[in-house]
């Protein structure tokens, strides 16, 4: 199917249309599929409530462990599944390079900000979708962060990130034993998810909207 959209304009609407056009032509799934992946992504985050301030900032205070439990389980299961999919030729690895300075400075800034905002770039939009104005203000801050990063990338940020040591992965250090390394990694990470004690911080403002027998804090 040949999709033609008039995207030559310079106004904001045309620039949005150009975004859709880019996705249609870049070959990483159809436009509908990418949108659907987003819907499921937002749905899972919303349905498990990990977008809540009480879950993420709560984890920073060590008063809620749902986020790390869910993250570690997803990583453990996916690492095993993905390895066999790659072996079968059904998927590819897309490894991010080791850039020490970027990872250390960036990770520190990111961790501090995540504790204060109680969101990350994936959960933030889901919070905005459920009406959280404070997170919308945070997203506007983020937009300016993205602007500053773009404007000063060549002059400042690129040098700050430092040199890339290449796209290293754990199995590369155990040549010839890749299968067993992947299996151990996947099982250990999944076990970490199960072993982390389950602690929860609830938000009365949300729970009071639910019928008595559906409240997770009364079960």
């Amino acid at each position, binding site marked *: 199917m040949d999709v033609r959209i008039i995207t030559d304009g310079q106004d904001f609407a045309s620039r949005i249309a150009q975004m859709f056009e880019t996705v249609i032509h870049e070959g990483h799934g159809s436009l509908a599929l990418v949108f659907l992946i987003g819907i499921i992504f937002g749905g899972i985050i919303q349905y498990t409530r990990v977008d809540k301030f009480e879950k993420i900032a709560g984890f920073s205070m060590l008063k809620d462990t749902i986020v790390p439990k869910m993250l570690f389980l*997803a990583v453990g299961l*996916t690492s095993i599944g993905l390895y066999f999919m790659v072996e079968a030729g059904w998927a590819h690895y897309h490894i991010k390079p080791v850039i020490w300075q970027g990872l250390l400075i960036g990770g520190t800034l990111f961790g501090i900000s995540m504790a204060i905002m109680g969101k990350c770039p994936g959960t933030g939009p889901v919070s905005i979708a459920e009406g959280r104005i404070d997170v919308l203000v945070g997203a506007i801050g983020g937009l300016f962060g993205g602007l500053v990063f773009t404007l000063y990338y060549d002059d400042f940020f690129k040098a700050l990130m430092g040199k890339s040591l290449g*796209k290293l992965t754990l199995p590369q250090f155990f040549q010839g034993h890749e299968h067993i390394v992947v299996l151990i990694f996947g099982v250990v990470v999944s076990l970490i998810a199960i072993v982390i004690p389950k602690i929860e911080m609830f938000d009365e403002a949300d729970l009071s909207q639910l019928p008595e027998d559906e409240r997770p804090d009364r079960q």
Partner: protein
Amino acid sequence: MSRLPWWTGGILMSGLLLLTFSVFGADRPIGASTYVPYFAGLVFDLSPEKYSYLKEIQNPGAWEGVMLLGALFGGFVTSVFITKSFRISLIPTGWKKYKNNSVLSRLLWSFVSGFFMIIGARLAGGCTSGHFMSGMSQMAISSMIFGTVVMIALVITGKFFYNTKEK
């Protein structure tokens, strides 16, 4: 049931990651921070020809931009019809309990942390989705470094930023 337990969420998220990675899906990882500088480029009308970073992220930025629109839609529908948590609010309950009652303080801190969160994510090359979930699933060393640094910074900040004693 109006809340999914963590293990169901983990299994579903794993399924979504595998679908996205697979050649039958999108043949790429899930990421959720590249779209921010991409949107900044759209909003402030910056030309990718002039800014090398925009040129670099043109394809992943657009992909994540469309995915984000889906996430907004999915999050909205779920919050209205399933978790019934949709409401307009300016300050989280937990912030009132462990920080302060000031809306202005919350909004200012949100803005500042949002700003540095995106700078941090772009310096490291990913966020919770791109590095922690997608990256660690590929056993990437970079993502394990990122995950460790973020967890340490997160917990130290939580300890000093909030008043958690005797509550």
